[in-house]
């Protein structure tokens, strides 16, 4: 540190009135929040990529190929939907990737923003509003979500589980599932005072069952009726079923098709409204 107390600090000073136009932040605040979130994510880009590619590869090698071979051999011509097990599994795995990718970028960052670093309070001390923080965090989470699904798709493509043509629609479906679920999780994360293992509970009692009972490994209808409701409220199942219908043409009724799309949108609408409310309240306390 310099010892010279008299160093003239060459401050140029024009004044906020002349250099800051509040309308710019009012219009683009969410983008600035997303910019910050992405800057944070880039600190971890190598792990995000490695995880995004490594995880599916391991998964595909063990379950997809291993179990798949077993299933295909034993079912033979009676295969589910008449496709290989890996093809059947692919939309479910993509839905998981979408949901997980988006969720990771809303839960921990929200704890960081409200509790650990309190960075949301620092954003809110500028012209940024609570609603803009919600939108910005979701925007960045969706960037991560889309990237993660895309990487997964590349692996699936390499293993011959999906076709090139089905990639865009599967990307859309899986990302929308991520959007719906993550917006609810964002509002939920903002409602809890401190982590205290809440996320571990959510993982155990929401995420895992959602993965297990959503027709991931076998059609939901093969489950006992008293377990099928889990599928109906799970974005994982809606994305999986929709993905199967749209990628390899699993037969589906049109009302169900509409329902699947609607579920994502309804979740997102509720999630955003709830998150906007919780964020604003917490910041204004």
């Amino acid at each position, binding site marked *: *540190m*310099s*010892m010279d*107390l008299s160093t003239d*600090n*060459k*401050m*140029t*000073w*024009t*004044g*906020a*009135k002349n*250099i*800051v*136009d*509040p309308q*710019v*932040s*009012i219009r*683009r*605040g969410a983008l*600035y*929040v997303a*910019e*910050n979130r992405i*800057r*944070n994510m880039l*600190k971890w880009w190598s792990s995000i990529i490695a995880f995004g590619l490594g995880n599916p590869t391991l998964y595909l090698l063990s379950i997809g190929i291993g179990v798949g071979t077993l299933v295909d051999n034993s079912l033979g011509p009676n295969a589910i939907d008449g496709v290989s097990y890996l093809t059947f599994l692919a939309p479910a795995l993509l839905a998981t990737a979408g949901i997980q990718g988006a969720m990771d970028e809303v839960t921990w960052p929200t704890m960081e923003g409200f509790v*650990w*670093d*309190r*960075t949301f*309070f*620092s*954003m*809110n*001390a*500028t*012209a*940024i*509003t609570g609603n803009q923080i919600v939108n910005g965090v979701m925007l960045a989470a969706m960037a991560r979500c889309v990237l993660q699904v895309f990487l997964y798709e590349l692996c699936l493509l390499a293993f011959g589980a999906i076709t090139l043509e089905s990639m865009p629609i599967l990307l859309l479906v899986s990302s929308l599932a991520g959007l719906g679920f993550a917006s609810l999780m964002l509002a939920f994360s903002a409602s809890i005072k401190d982590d205290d293992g809440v996320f571990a509970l959510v993982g155990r009692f929401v995420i895992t069952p959602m993965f297990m009972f959503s027709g991931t490994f076998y059609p939901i209808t093969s489950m006992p009726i008293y377990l099928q409701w889990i599928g109906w409220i799970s974005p994982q199942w809606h994305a999986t079923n929709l993905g199967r219908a749209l990628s390899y043409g699993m037969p589906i009724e049109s009302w169900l098709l509409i329902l699947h799309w609607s579920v994502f949108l309804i979740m997102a609408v509720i999630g955003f409204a709830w998150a906007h409310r919780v964020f604003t309240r917490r*910041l*204004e*306390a």
Partner: protein
Amino acid sequence: MIVAKGLTKVYGDFKAVDGIDFTVRRGESFGLLGPNGAGKSTTMKMIASTSQRSGGDLLILGKDPNKHGPEIRAHLGVVPQQDNLDRELKVWENLMIYGRYFGLSRKFLKGKIEELLEFAQLGEKRNNKTEELSGGMKRRLTIARGLVNEPEILMLDEPTTGLDPQARHILWDRLFRLKELGVTLVITTHYMDEAEQLCDRLMVMDKGKIMAEGSPAELIKKYSSKEVLEVRFGSENNAAVAKKLEGIGERLEILPDRILVYAENGEKALEQIVKKGLHPVTSLVRRSSLEDVFLRLTGRTLVD
């Protein structure tokens, strides 16, 4: 610049700020003093247009924060009591993202960041993550960050807590220059020398209410005597001896380790004490300071 009337903040059924009135004029440097829990930070957050008031009227830069929060905040600089830097990001990145929130261009910010690093004397640490900074360095960075938009009003909640004496003096000097540039300062502090140095006008708060208001000199004149005699009789004896001192000087203040005798003339008061056959272990005569005003207004061990 700031006009508050009956400003109130309620948490549950607890009144953290209880109907206070005050005005801060352009270019003024305004200080909030008060013991822990007095409601200083709560008042600061309402002025910063983040915390919603529960009652009363508030105008900042001529606008109501309930209706124009973002517009007002765009022209404010806020240094919160608790640092809220982004731990994962580097020092310069923290300044960059904060500037971006105001919609400032990267080009403008590049130059600004250099100035602010110089201001905070963190040039050598520009590429360190903020979690690698010392407490005082984080504080300096938070202060510099509050200047990124060249605010009209700079709000500083205990700015120098955790700063070494040298850094404090440098900061005072810099704040003084900002004031010369026309920036309005609102400062809370527990350091009376700081309040005396920096503030044109002070407001002493306790339990959400205003106890006194005025310039440091006015407050000293109004609430304290010209001189103070500090005498020590050893911790165990102070309370007992204090009874015998009644009547000497204008007022006594009994602290755990010493007794303060407020008097027009300290030496004379000391003579009176010695005449009573009491012999303090140490004695010291000094001029009254804000510290005495603070004790008088918020201290709980008053013996009048």
